């Protein structure tokens, strides 16, 4: 991903240069920068070593922590503490929203691996996988088409990127309306051909609508990144391929796609996290996990177990499992693609 990549390189080089400037300037820089401990710590340590005045040393030692404290308090309160608490609760049978606890060891985790709960895991993997592949694939295709020199590209691009501006919940309501069997536009058209599918009572159809909605939702986002990447593609390799007599498809497959791989990797990570976590709003608005649990992905199952069925302990165990799964997928992807990702020239 060219734009972000270069930005990251810039920031790294600036951090390095900061480390080597005199103390006063370093502190001045650090003041303005609350959110990046990595950039702050190194220069400050230098400051302490080189300063003889006790007040300055105190300031130098405490200042970064003081400045970090508000952020740390917020993160600890709303992220680390709930996470630790989730891990703790996953070993308990939690009744009445935490008013009664009974230690059950690994029972909750064991329950996750009975057939009924395993099917949620499989369903999540299949639906999320399809969403990621289709969202990235369709955006790549559209970006390639937009990259052709045709009239009105800007307008097409604008229109295609539009879904990005919608919240998932709003998009969910829109699809719910579109596919309403009684008054939805889709069925109004389909009735002309004599069919009137019940989108939200047939499991397979509901799954299809959910996937379509999620892909559509992520399509605009992916397109922004691919469009930017296409505009920054180096011309030389493509020209070289042309000279070597490569067909348009060969050039796309063997030159363009590899050159786009940093963007693809980035999109894979963001799309995977979208399909795993952000699909919640869409499911909640459109299907509530039905019919027959056919659109219940893990994130929605966690919600239902925790807040609808009040199985807080089971939900906590499931959340832990999900956390591990997502981290594993992303690590695996990073490792697999490390060698195959090209960061261009």
């Amino acid at each position, binding site marked *: 991903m060219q734009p972000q990549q270069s930005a990251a390189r810039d920031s790294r080089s600036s951090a390095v240069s900061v480390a080597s400037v005199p103390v006063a300037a370093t502190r001045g820089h650090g003041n303005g920068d609350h959110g990046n401990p990595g950039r702050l710590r190194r220069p400050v340590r230098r400051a302490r070593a080189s300063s003889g005045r006790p007040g300055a040393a105190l300031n130098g030692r405490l*200042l970064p922590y003081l400045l970090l404290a508000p952020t740390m*308090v917020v993160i600890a309160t709303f992220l680390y503490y709930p996470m630790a608490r989730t891990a703790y609760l996953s070993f308990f049978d939690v009744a009445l*929203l935490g008013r009664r606890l009974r230690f059950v060891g690994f029972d909750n985790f064991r329950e996750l691996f009975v057939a009924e709960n395993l099917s949620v895991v499989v369903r999540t993997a299949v639906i999320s996988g399809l969403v990621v592949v289709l969202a990235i694939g369709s955006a790549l295709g559209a970006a390639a088409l937009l990259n052709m020199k045709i009239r009105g590209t800007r307008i097409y691009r604008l229109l295609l990127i539009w879904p990005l501006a919608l919240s998932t919940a709003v998009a969910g309501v829109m699809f719910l309306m579109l596919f309403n069997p009684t008054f939805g536009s889709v069925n109004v058209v389909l009735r002309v051909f004599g069919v009137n599918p019940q989108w939200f009572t047939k*499991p397979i159809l509901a799954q299809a609508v959910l996937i379509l909605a999620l892909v559509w939702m992520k399509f605009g986002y992916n397109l922004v990144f691919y469009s930017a990447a296409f505009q920054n593609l180096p011309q030389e390799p493509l020209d070289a391929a042309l000279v070597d007599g490569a067909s348009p498809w060969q050039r796309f497959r063997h030159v363009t796609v590899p050159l786009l791989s940093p963007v693809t990797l980035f999109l894979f990570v963001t799309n995977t996290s979208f399909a795993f976590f952000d699909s919640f709003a869409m499911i909640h608005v459109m299907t509530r996990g039905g019919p027959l649990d056919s659109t219940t992905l893990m994130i929605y199952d966690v919600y239902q177990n925790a*807040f609808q*069925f009040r199985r807080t302990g089971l939900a906590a165990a499931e959340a832990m499992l999900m956390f591990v799964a997502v981290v594993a997928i992303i690590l695996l992807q990073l490792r697999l693609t490390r060698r195959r990702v090209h960061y261009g020239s």
Partner: protein
Amino acid sequence: MKRVLRAGVAALAASVVTVAGCSSDGDDDGGTDELNANGDIVVHFWHGYGGQRLEWVNQAVAKYNAQAKGVEVRAESKTDYDKLFDAVLLAAGTKAAPELAQVVVTYTSAALKSGAFTTISDADTEKTIDPSSYMDAVVGQLTVDGKLTSVPWAHSGPVLFYDKGLFRKAGLDPEKPPATWPELLAACEALVKVSKVSEYCIGIPWHPWFVENWMAGQDVPLLDHDNGRSGDAERAALDSEVAQTVFQNWKQLYDEHYYPYSTEGYDFPRQMFSESKTAMTVSSIADAGYFQGAFAEQKRELGIGFFPSASEKPAIGTTLGGASVWLTAGLSPKTKQAALDFLAWLTSPEMAAEWHKATGYFPVNKKAEAILQSEGWFEKNPAFYVALDQLKETKVTPATSGPLHSAMPEVNDAIMKALEQVLIGNVPAADALKSAQEASNSSILRMNKIK
């Protein structure tokens, strides 16, 4: 530079204090009185209503505050019964906890187990609340281990609402709504064929209360140990023949295209019936006020009948639904007394009569019925008397007393999941109910282990 720094440190100190302040609430004993600007004791009353019922509650509370001395009641809606119960559990033991909260009867047992409430029998040392002034059936349902858990307020029974005009058009007797299952099917056949006005015959809210009632009508309790009333229940009765019949009936209505399927709870059938898309609907008598208004507006004629039986035998009666008002634990004597005084007023004969007229909920105070009779209310609105009549004719057995167990919310979820499998998943009723039975039993045993 230094000034900026100092300001930053001050702001930081302030933020740390704020965070500490937020977290210091902890488990307060709650034994202090909250006073408003005038020095009046504040009583928070959480309920689960929106719309018309919410307005009624706000007006009633305003009326009470205008006449009461030294107390201010603040009513707050928590949207629905489920969210309400969660909110009370989460607030319990903190300063945010209300003094009074409505709890739906499904949660009676869970409320007792939570420790977030005190029973009226334990708390009402001054005898402000007289249990004998309330309808016996309601008091019976709210009494656990000989103690009145809470004050009766919004209680209802299931009934059949129907459109008299459509009945006439279909050649049916508008004064004789179907009472048994064969009659219901015959009526549906006539209504859908002849009237051509309504697309469907009958709406059923997506709610386990109707399964419970169809079973109770055949004298089959949902749980063992007399529906959990003679001891902790250990298993559900979803493997019973009657449960299968109820499921097959529901499925038959769906297959015949008599019943519009939706998992939207009460709202969907309510809307279908008020838009004439169904000719009948079963629902809670608490919808009588709403339907009465909608029908008057459209110049249609509303009929209300007994909740139909699931077989060819007449039903022995129905179970009560709705929600009573509970007192939370840890109140100071003064606040507790203020809360009880408000409850005594809210459920006084006059207010109970008003509440009934506005909504259709039972006039829970025995003397309210006399007031309504003297006003000629039932003569003008005979439909409103139907649920009361049905309740009086109900044979009191463990089945019609309703299930009592802290796992009931989970049992209910299992029932609806099984019903969905039967209706749209084409799973045979016996198989779906077998899994529901297993799930329910394990939920019941799990909750029994939690003391």
